[in-house]
């Protein structure tokens, strides 16, 4: 990103299995977007998508990062984890499909709506995943 353009970059760590802190990164992202005065509707979409992605890391992966890049045009969220990877992305995109262990379902997570939700909230979404290595999800939100 060009230095002369107003832009910001934040990186938050997410630990797998740490349900106590789950959602912290998304809350920070939300607050930052509120502070720069992003549109409320967009903030909400980012908050939902980012939270879903963050929860995926907490539920499935060992460790990961939520990265926020924003400028006047775009908000980009990249969630990168070291974890089991997604075996069949197309299947994972099916609403209701979930591999979340039952122990986390009663907390209201792992309902199988994570990826479809992220996709419907963002303007663009890319998923890269390698089995037993990890998953990277990149979501772009038009800041207009």
């Amino acid at each position: 990103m060009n230095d002369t353009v107003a832009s910001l970059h934040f990186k938050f760590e997410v630990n797998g299995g740490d349900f106590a802190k789950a959602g912290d990164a998304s809350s920070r992202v939300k607050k930052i977007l509120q502070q720069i005065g992003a549109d409320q509707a967009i903030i909400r979409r980012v908050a939902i998508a980012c939270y879903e992605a963050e929860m995926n890391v907490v539920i499935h992966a060992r460790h990961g990062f939520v990265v926020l890049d924003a400028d006047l045009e775009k908000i980009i969220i990249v969630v990168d984890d070291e974890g089991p990877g997604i075996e069949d992305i197309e299947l994972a995109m099916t609403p209701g499909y979930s591999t979340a262990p039952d122990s986390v379902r009663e907390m209201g997570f792992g309902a199988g709506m994570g990826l479809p939700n992220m996709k419907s909230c963002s303007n663009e979404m890319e998923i890269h995943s390698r089995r037993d290595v990890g998953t990277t999800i990149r979501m772009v939100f038009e800041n207009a």
Partner: protein
Amino acid sequence: MLDAVDKGYFHSVHLLEDKCKGCVNCIKRCPTEAIRVRDGKAHIIEVRCIDCGECVRNCPNKAKTVLADSMTRLKDYKINVALPAPAVYGQFREGTDPRKVLAALLSIGFDHVIDVAFAADMVARKVREVLERPMEVRPLISSACPAVIRLIQVRFPNLIEHIIPMLSPMRAAANIAKHEFLDKPGAQADQVGIWFITPCPGKVSAINDPEGIEESTITGAIPIAEVYPLIREKLRDDTAISAMVDKLKVGSGLGVGWARSGGENQAIGGSRQIAVDGIHNVIQILEEVERGKLSDIDYIEAQACVGGCVGGVLTVENSFITRRRIRLLASENADDVQHDDLISSALECEDWFRHDKPIEPRPTLKLDDDMAVAIRKMEQMERIVEDLPGLDCGSCGAPNCQALAEDVVRGLATEMDCMFKLRERVTELAGEMMLLAEKVPPAMGHVEKKAEEKHAVGEHSTKPEPEPDK
């Protein structure tokens, strides 16, 4: 200086300067980070304050106060109408007939009384109607607690559309009062005082600065704590008031139940509802709503005070005791709805329950109106945060390092307000002075050797403390 951003909202929570010792209890507990300590005194950032009363509750020096109306104002009006909050009933001994409490109000200076619990009965029916209609927005959030409404305006502007389009029982009661005493031919508005008997500062503010309606019908709010001793006196020898009891209209037990957490849901009935109390718990729930996590819930009863209205800071009795009393009243008189005629006519009056203007967001987080500037400030803020110790100690007067950084970029504080930064800087300066002190004229000799020695000492002293963990 912080007040410069004030947009002139009315607030009932204020600081008693001479009592404030500048401790940081309030800044740590404030749910909207609306308090800073400056020059040894707490300052409330008015735009952010939601009048939840959390600081009043937590101040060890009783330096926070609530500006409300007093009984003495009754003499300014020819006719005075009391609107007692259901929480009033919980203040008196178990077994006290609510009607006697209303009668006591009539004998301490009020001419009429409209039971807010009765209005709550009607609002509960109206809410049920709304919940039964298929609607897109879920969950809906109760409009009964003004502090929660302000919290949503300030911190969750996204969720304004979730607030149920329905006035609170207090407002509905006020509209009944208006119908009975102001809309009658020959009534003179300036001669009628309508007074809410309030458990909390939130209601005081809501009355003086209404949300969702053009004009407040209510003249003012008198704390429960002020009428309590007067009513108790009357209840002690109740022969005088017992005679009046039969003429009084009182809400059902379920209406009274609104005073405690869970009572509103109980009155409305239904299963996909949750009740949350305590402002910090409310924040957690709203976060979840914002993330779309509670869309299988129809209705959220949310109250800023733990235990509900009985936990308000302007009440008298311990909230656990009052909660029990309210619960007993709710179960004893659950079906005891009086004067069905008024209820049915009231339920036809849609206007009594409707907002007549939208609730506006009051976002206070934006660093600048120009997003490019805001982004730059954000970057700058992050650099400052990285440089701060991250202890969130509060000694700078801001609740945490993040908030201090924000104050700095807003031009309301400097990094040197941080104890640790200041100490670092002082040590640095001390080191420089040492070096300067060594700069004696070469003619005086031993320069290099001395400087070496001193420098070594200086290095030790520049790190008097281990770096605090980030």
